């Protein structure tokens, strides 16, 4: 007698795979956010103990062959694993601190490319971001709405919601969230991150921040898909 083939539900399998992928993508955005906040002991520990490299390697493994460029950036990042907190603070301050030649890590600083009156547009931008975050019940610190780590954390949060939606099998919600993530890259982060990363690459001596911004550029390029702007 033949044993009947046990047939699984192809959609449930798919949702299981994407639950993990959305979770991994969220982890990448969360670690990147940590990398771009002012350095603290959590970052130093993650660097020294190899957690940062390990987590980002694991969380991007689903990319298969296309993970390679990211691994190169992780190796560069890991070359600074022994950096102390004061060293990281110095490097952070030199790049993003209050000097005349600082590189702005916020979207409003790059508005001059697309608007005639950047000062007016900055206010509108921040209000639009506050409204957008508010739709998801989030309220960032006033004045930080358009900053790089906050935008990365917002994407991490959307990925978290997407993870929950795949897990619950609500694919239409999960697809909508994935579209929202992409729309946020198109409307905000993806518009200015390439220029920001290029400035960091051009300006800085090799440091943790050159490596983390190279990773951010490569990762966002993969996330954005077709049409991502490359200034180099």
């Amino acid at each position, binding site marked *: 007698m033949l044993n009947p*083939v*046990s*047939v*699984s*539900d*192809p*959609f449930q*399998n*798919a*949702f299981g*795979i*994407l639950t993990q*992928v959305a979770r991994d993508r969220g982890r990448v955005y969360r670690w990147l956010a940590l990398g771009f906040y002012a350095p603290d002991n959590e970052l130093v520990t993650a660097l020294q103990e190899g957690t940062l490299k390990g987590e980002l390697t694991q969380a991007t493994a*689903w*990319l298969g062959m*296309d993970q390679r460029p990211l691994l190169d950036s992780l190796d560069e990042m890991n070359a600074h694993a022994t950096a102390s907190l004061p060293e990281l603070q110095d490097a952070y301050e030199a790049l993003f601190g209050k000097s005349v030649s600082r590189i702005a890590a916020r979207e409003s600083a790059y508005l001059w490319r697309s608007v005639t009156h950047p000062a007016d547009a900055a206010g509108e931008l921040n209000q639009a971001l506050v409204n957008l975050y508010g739709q998801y019940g989030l309220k960032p610190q006033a004045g930080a709405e358009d900053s790089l780590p906050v935008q990365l954390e917002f994407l991490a949060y959307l990925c978290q919601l997407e993870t929950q939606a795949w897990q619950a099998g609500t*694919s239409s919600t*999960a*697809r*909508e969230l*994935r*579209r929202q993530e*992409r729309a946020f890259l198109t409307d905000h982060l993806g518009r200015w991150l390439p220029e920001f990363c290029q400035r960091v690459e051009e300006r800085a001596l090799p440091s943790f921040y050159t490596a983390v911004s190279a990773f951010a550029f490569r990762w966002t*390029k*993969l*996330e*954005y*898909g*077709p*049409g*991502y702007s490359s200034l180099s």
Partner: protein
Amino acid sequence: MTKRLVMVIDLQACTGCNTCSVACKQENNLPDGVWWTQVVTLGDNGNDSPAGEYPNLFMDYLPLGCQHCVNAPCVEVCPSGATAQTEDGLVIQDPTQCGGCRYCMLVCPYTGVRVFAGETLRYSLPFPTGDNPMIHRPFTVEKCNFCAHRLKRGLLPACVDSCPMVARTFGDLGDPNSEVSKLLRERPHFQLLVENGADPSTFYLT
């Protein structure tokens, strides 16, 4: 019965010549390194490598492309609508809609039937080939569309038309008098990975 377009591939007839792969590449103007259909060697590792020890060698061929599943997980998860199913069962992929998220690739039960087009698309010939008007875009996912553009003109998919061994048959499984229905009634056959429940529309005659 509902129209369901399927591909039937006779593994007894297939000689692994890869004419189907080349015809597909030409018809769809596929960039270098992009293949929508390939012939996999069942034997040792590598193309045309038999398994076993002489004189007891074994080698077979398995033409492989998108299986156009009825319960296609790729369609269910695509956030941009680039992957869609037509009423007659084709699973089509439109690179102009594709956001490059690769979710379709990740959930596809079959490895290697989709290709993620790289950053730079290169072509061996300085002019486009074939009749598929599709524009290939970097950072998008591509796959076999069963030559939907040819079907609209009453033609068969390029791989079917070009097979010198007439190993491929294409038609409507919903029509009991179609060639594919007859073949599947008369010949033993299988579908790949039925246990996944995707119900593929590619059948292999043994």
